[in-house]
C-alpha cells in the first residue's frame, strides 16, 4: 500500500480527499488556484473543485486569513494558505487575536475549524526576510495548535486531522521538505495528531527535533552510531501541544537531552522544550540539556554564510560528542 511521494503531493492528496469528503471545506490563498500553488500543494484542485472552493486571493494576508475566521464562524472549514510564514506576520492579528480567542470569548459558542497552512524555514538563499521559521510566535497562544509535519506520511494525516478538527490549527510546513520524498500509506491509521514519534531508538542521548531538523538529526544519529554512540531521535510533530510524556520517557532512559532547532535559539521553540524537560527530568539528567540552534543573526543571503548560520549534520554530531564527553565528569 506504500508509495513514495513528495511531501507536497501528500499535502495535495490530503486536500483533495477533504475537499471531496466535505463541501464545507475550501482552500484559499495567493496563487493556489489557476497557478496551482507556489509549491504545487494545490495543483489540480482548481480544475477539479472550481474557483469558490479553491480561491485565488489578492495579496491581503491580514484580511484573507480573517476571511477564514469569518467563514469558520459561519460553519465552513477554510484552509488558508499563506505563501510563506514570513508573510504571516501580516495575518497574526487574525490568527492570535481572532481565531485563537473567539471560541473562548464567545463563552464557547463558536468552534473555529480553521486551518492555516504555510511553509517556513531557511531554504536556498532567500535572504533575511524570507528565511524565518517564526514558529515560537504561534506557541505562546492559548487556543491555538501548531503542527509541524516532517514526512509525507505525517503531512498527509496531520493536514487531514487539522481540517477535521474544530480548533484553529496552524500547520507549519517547510520549503525544503516539499520536494523531498518519503513513503505514504494512505490506508494506515493515523496516530493522534500531536503525538511525538520516536524516529530512532538509542540509549545515550535524546535528540529532540521537528520539521526539517529531524532529517538532519537522523543523519547525525547514523554517523554517531558508526562511532558507537546511540542517540534516540524524537520528532515532536507538534509544537503546541508538545507530547511531553514521550520526551520525558526518553530522557529518563538516556539522561541527556539535545534540542536541534533551525531558528535562532534565544527564546525559540527549543527554549520551551529544554525548560520543561529540564524541569521535569531534572534529576534524570547527567548533563545540562542543550540547544543547537541558528546563529543570532538575520539569515544572510550569501550561501556559505547561510549554511553556516543554521545547524548542520556535523554540527549535531560534534555537539552530541561534546555533551557526552563533558557529561562524564561534571
Amino acid at each position, binding site marked *: 500500500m506504500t508509495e513514495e511521494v513528495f511531501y507536497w503531493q501528500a499535502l495535495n492528496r490530503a486536500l483533495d480527499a477533504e475537499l471531496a469528503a466535505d463541501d464545507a471545506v475550501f482552500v484559499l490563498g495567493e496563487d493556489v488556484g489557476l497557478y496551482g500553488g507556489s509549491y504545487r500543494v494545490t495543483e489540480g484542485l482548481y480544475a477539479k473543485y472550481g474557483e469558490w472552493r479553491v480561491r485565488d486571493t489578492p495579496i491581503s494576508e491580514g484580511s484573507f486569513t480573517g*476571511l477564514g475566521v469569518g467563514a469558520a464562524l459561519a460553519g465552513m472549514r*477554510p484552509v488558508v494558505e499563506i505563501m510563506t510564514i514570513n508573510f504571516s506576520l501580516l495575518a497574526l492579528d487574525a490568527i492570535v*487575536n481572532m481565531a485563537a480567542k*473567539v471560541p*473562548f*470569548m464567545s463563552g464557547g459558542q463558536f468552534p473555529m475549524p480553521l486551518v492555516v497552512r504555510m511553509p517556513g524555514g531557511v531554504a536556498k538563499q532567500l535572504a533575511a526576510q524570507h528565511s524565518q521559521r517564526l514558529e515560537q510566535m504561534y506557541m505562546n497562544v492559548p487556543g491555538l495548535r501548531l503542527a509541524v509535519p516532517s514526512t509525507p506520511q505525517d503531512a498527509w494525516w496531520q493536514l487531514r486531522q487539522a481540517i477535521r478538527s474544530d480548533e484553529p490549527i496552524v500547520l507549519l510546513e517547510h520549503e525544503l521538505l516539499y520536494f523531498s520524498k518519503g513513503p505514504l500509506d494512505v490506508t494506515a491509521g493515523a496516530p493522534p495528531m*500531536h503525538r511525538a514519534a520516536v524516529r530512532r531508538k538509542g540509549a545515550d542521548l535524546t535528540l529532540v527535533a521537528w520539521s526539517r531538523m529531524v532529517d538532519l538529526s537522523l543523519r547525525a544519529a547514523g554517523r554517531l552510531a558508526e562511532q558507537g554512540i546511540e542517540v534516540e531521535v524524537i520528532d515532536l510533530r507538534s509544537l503546541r501541544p508538545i507530547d511531553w510524556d514521550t520526551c520525558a520517557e526518553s530522557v529518563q532512559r538516556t539522561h541527556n537531552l539535545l534540542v536541534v532547532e533551525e531558528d535562532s535559539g534565544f527564546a525559540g521553540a527549543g527554549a520551551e522544550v529544554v525548560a520543561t524537560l529540564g524541569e521535569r527530568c531534572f534529576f534524570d539528567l547527567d548533563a545540562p540539556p542543550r540547544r543547537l540552534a541558528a546563529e543570532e543573526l538575520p539569515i544572510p543571503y550569501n550561501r556559505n554564510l547561510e549554511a553556516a548560520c543554521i545547524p548542520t549534520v556535523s554540527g549535531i554530531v560534534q555537539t552530541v560528542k561534546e555533551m557526552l564527553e563533558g557529561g562524564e565528569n561534571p
Partner: protein
Amino acid sequence: MDQETRLQMLHDMLLARAFEERAAEEYTKGNIGGFLHLYPGEEAVAVGVLHAAEPSDYVVSTYREHVHAMVRGMPPGVVMAELFGKRDGCSRGMGGSMHLFDRERRFMGGYAIVGETYPVAIGIGYAIAMRKLPEAVICFFGDGAVNQGTFHESLNMAALWKLPVLFVCENNHYQIGTEIHRHSAVTEVYRRACAHRIPARKADGMDVFEVHQATRMALDQIRQDTGPYLLEFETYRFRGHSMADPGTYRPKVEVQAKEKEDPVAVAIAETLPGYPTAEQIAAAGTDSITRMTDTMNAGGHLPGDTLQRIEAQVAQEVEEAVAFAQASPEPTMEDARAALDCNRGMEVLI
C-alpha cells in the same frame, strides 16, 4: 412602515438610551469593569439598520455593540449579565462588554481590535455566496476604523467576488480624541468605496427612519447578488469614547452647537465623576430620540400616553436586566476551560 414596527423601533431607541446610561451608572458603582464604550447619541443607526435586516442575516460588530446586540434581539438581562461578567451573560462572562456573541441570533461578535469586523464579515459573506443563500452580512465600524488596512483589503475582496456584505460606517467624527479631519484625508467615508467600485451613500444617522430606509434599499440590492454596499451614517456620541475618557478634547463650542435638552443623560452624568459635564451631555442637539418622537408626533403616531408607556416599560426592562445580572452566578474556572475547549470535542490530541 407599520405602526407596530415604528413602536418597536421607538422602544428600542429608548431601551438603548436607558440601558447605556444605566450601564454607566453600574460602571461607576464597580459592577462593570474594563473598557465600557457607550452608545448614547448613536441609537438611530443600530435601530434603523437592524430593523431593516432579516433574522437570517448576520451581524458583525465592534466593542461599542451593546445596542446592536439588543436590537438584534438579545435580552437586556443577558447583555447586562455579560457586562457584569456573569455566567448568564451571552458570552458566559468570558467576553465582557466588548465581546458579545449570540450564535442563535447570528450576532457574530463584538471585536475589540479596530478593523477586525471587515474580514470576519467577508468570511461570512463568502460562506453565504458559496452556498448561494439569500442571506446578507451587516458589518459595523467607526470612522476611525476605515484607516485600518483591512478596510480596503476586505472591500476589494468583497467587490471582486460580489459578496453579500453591507458595510455600515457609524461616523461619529471621532477616533477617540482625534477628529475625523485629523485622521482621514477624505472625511466623507462613503467616497472611499469608489476605490473598489462599491456602491455607497451617506445618510443622516440621527434620523432613524432615514437610516432604516437607506438600509432597506441597500439590502434589497445586495440580495440581487450585485455584491457589497456601503452606507455611511453621520452621527454623534454624547459621551466620551469610553468610561475611561472624559471627552474633554471636544471643544465646548462644538458640543454646544448640538445643544438641546436630554434630561435622562443630564441626570445620570451629574452623578459621574470625571465624565462629560452636564453642559456637554446636554448636547443632544440633533438627538435622535427627540427627533424620532417629533416625527412620530407630527405623523400622529404617538397617540395618548404611548411614549410614557414605552418609557415605563423600558425602565422596567432595565431594572430587570440589572436584577438578572446581579442574581446570576460568577463563572468558575471550569466554565473558563469549557469555553476554551468548546471546539475540542472528543478529539484525542496526544
